């Protein structure tokens, strides 16, 4: 039996037959000239015709697509015959360059221009390159790159997937994704998780599999097996049962012995909130208000803010919604709040600190939150990001009370806040641990640097110990003030158990993770969770912490997580 190993990026076990993505279009050689019999005029006509065919095909796919995919495809279709792209190619053809090479170079310079513009435009550069490859395929008369057509569902094997492919990927036709390239953060991984398809990336050698080969894919273990047997068939059947129960969260987070741990959702706006409520979230643990305003150059008016917040509150009548005030700065700049010239934005004026440089914005935001809260039945709590001292917590709490907000809290992201949580909790009514930033500040490792990924694990025993200290501070304060977690750590079903064992009261996460977190949490008693937490905190490093805890949770194997 042939075996391929990669990195599992989306759990699930499935048996199906392979369909290979057509090979990527090879680059026409530099300096390739028009054939002697072809005049530049003829080549230009051929290029325009090929571009039209590609446009029609993309347009057809756009018509079949819905939502965000549809608009991406509509824009990509327009690019195929875009004057900027075609005119530059026509000029090259006039100098004797072949049509294939001409469109290749023209596409490259357009993509580079978009790439240099950064942000959203840089993402569109990939679409230009996709269009370019399609035009070259059309000129050569070979199969266009893209998802193969098939009547029966199949396991899609590719080098890596482009956004234009994933946009039209039909989850009813594709059983699993396996790529020879890509990584855990590649586009393939992201789309697989969003669609709930089992996926393995970086599985070297799979490009040699022939179409129609029957394979077994395990998206948790990161393996692909050729010619599956009874053992694999049993595993698939078991997964089907698990998947049915995993796809729904029953709406109550608790341990096996009934210790309640509400599972809340992280949301960026009303649309997210509606989805989260439908998925069973017991409230919102983190409303990222800056996401309502990321595209803005100017401060949103109070009225605009009231509408945005009320949309979220209305999705959770009678339930808790924790609003985080604008967390601008570092990786999330807002032109009206942050100074982009700071040499070290992560350690600069960000989060609550922007009240120093732009006084008034926070006060107006609190007014808007209070107004929206009064007009809805949600139980609204408010918290400030990037609090480092008890004085900051006291000032923020006072501002909230003036605005009429009764439950002010603070984020614990800066290690000083974790160490001083007892005194901070004399001023604030609750704290919420932002584990992403807490990890980056504890380990002094930039979140966005791939090379420091190992340091940036919330499994680092030092980070877990700071969480433990935060809980100890709440106990020392004496009024049972809640300690929640709203970072990525809470979405990891294994780490979630550790957090509960450390004494965290609520977990807030992306709504897709709630079912897995809920299922694993229900498999342990509070006492077992406490033992696992002790194991993790006393580990030598993050790998050891994770490995030791996983070994004690047999349900992970059962669930394929």
């Amino acid at each position, binding site marked *: 039996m042939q075996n391929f190993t990669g990195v599992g990026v989306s759990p699930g076990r499935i048996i199906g037959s392979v369909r290979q993505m057509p090979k990527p279009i090879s680059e026409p050689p530099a300096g390739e000239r028009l054939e002697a019999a072809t005049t530049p005029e003829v080549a230009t006509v051929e290029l325009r015709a090929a571009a039209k065919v590609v446009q029609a095909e993309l347009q057809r796919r756009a018509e079949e697509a819905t939502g965000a995919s549809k608009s991406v495809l509509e*824009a990509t279709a327009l690019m195929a015959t875009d004057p900027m792209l075609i005119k530059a190619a026509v000029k090259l053809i006039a100098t004797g360059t072949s049509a294939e090479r001409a469109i290749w170079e023209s596409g490259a310079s357009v993509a580079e221009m*978009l790439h240099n513009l950064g942000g959203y435009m840089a993402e569109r550069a990939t679409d*230009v390159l996709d269009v370019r490859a399609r035009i070259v395929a059309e000129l050569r008369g070979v199969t266009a790159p893209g998802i193969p057509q098939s009547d029966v569902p199949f396991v899609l094997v590719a080098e890596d997937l482009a956004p234009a492919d994933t946009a039209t990927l039909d989850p009813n036709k594709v059983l699993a994704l396996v790529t020879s390239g890509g990584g855990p953060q590649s586009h393939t991984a992201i789309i697989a998780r969003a669609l709930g398809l089992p996926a393995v990336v970086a599985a070297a050698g799979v490009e040699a599999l022939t179409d129609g080969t029957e394979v077994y894919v395990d998206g948790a273990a990161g393996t692909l097996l050729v010619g599956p047997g009874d053992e694999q068939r049993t595993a698939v059947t078991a997964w089907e049962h698990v998947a049915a129960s995993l796809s729904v969260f029953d709406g109550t987070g608790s341990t096996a012995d009934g210790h309640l741990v509400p599972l809340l959702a992280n949301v960026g706006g009303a649309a997210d909130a509606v989805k989260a409520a439908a998925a069973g979230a017991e409230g919102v643990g983190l409303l990222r208000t800056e996401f309502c305003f990321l*595209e803005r150059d100017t401060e949103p008016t109070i009225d605009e803010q009231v509408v945005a917040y009320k949309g979220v509150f209305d999705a959770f009548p009678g339930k808790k919604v924790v609003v985080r005030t604008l967390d601008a700065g570092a990786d999330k700049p807002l032109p009206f709040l942050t100074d982009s010239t700071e040499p070290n934005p992560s350690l600069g004026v960000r989060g609550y600190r922007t009240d120093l440089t732009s006084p008034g914005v926070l006060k107006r935001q609190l007014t808007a939150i209070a107004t929206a809260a009064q007009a809805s039945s949600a139980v609204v709590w408010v918290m400030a990001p990037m609090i480092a001292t008890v004085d900051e917590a006291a000032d923020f709490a006072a501002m909230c009370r003036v605005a009429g907000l009764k439950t002010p809290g603070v984020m614990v992201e800066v290690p000083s806040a974790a160490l001083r949580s007892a005194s901070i909790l004399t001023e604030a009514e609750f704290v919420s641990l932002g584990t992403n930033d807490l990890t980056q500040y504890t380990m002094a490792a930039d979140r966005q640097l791939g090379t420091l990924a190992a340091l940036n694990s919330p499994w680092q025993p030092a980070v877990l110990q700071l969480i433990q200290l935060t809980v100890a501070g709440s106990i020392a304060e004496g009024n049972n003030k809640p300690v929640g977690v709203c970072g990525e750590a809470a979405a990891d079903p294994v780490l979630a158990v550790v957090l509960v064992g450390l004494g965290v009261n609520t977990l807030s996460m992306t709504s897709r993770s709630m079912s897995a977190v809920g299922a694993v949490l229900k498999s342990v008693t509070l006492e077992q969770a406490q033992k696992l937490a002790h194991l993790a905190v006393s580990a030598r490093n993050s790998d050891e912490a994770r490995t030791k805890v996983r070994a004690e949770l047999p349900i992970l194997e059962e669930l394929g997580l």
Partner: protein
Amino acid sequence: MSERKATIASRVGLHARPASIFAAAVGELTIEVTIALETDPAEDAMDASSILSLMSLGASNGDVVVLRAEGDGADAALESLVKLLETDLDAE
């Protein structure tokens, strides 16, 4: 030469879906239309039927752009294009 100014109404600015809709509308005209930011000189104006040009223009919500065209029906054509830019195309 006809010339009209328009304030970008789409919340996301003139890219993504709003740019597609606008470029497609210009593409249907028989005359050539150029677009430039109000602050840019006229010789930097770009082909308004090109979605790639529109995207590289980088016009955000609230920015003022200048549309220019020549020929029969230029005034009427620009008038309808201004209306398009001054609608929040992303909301529809």
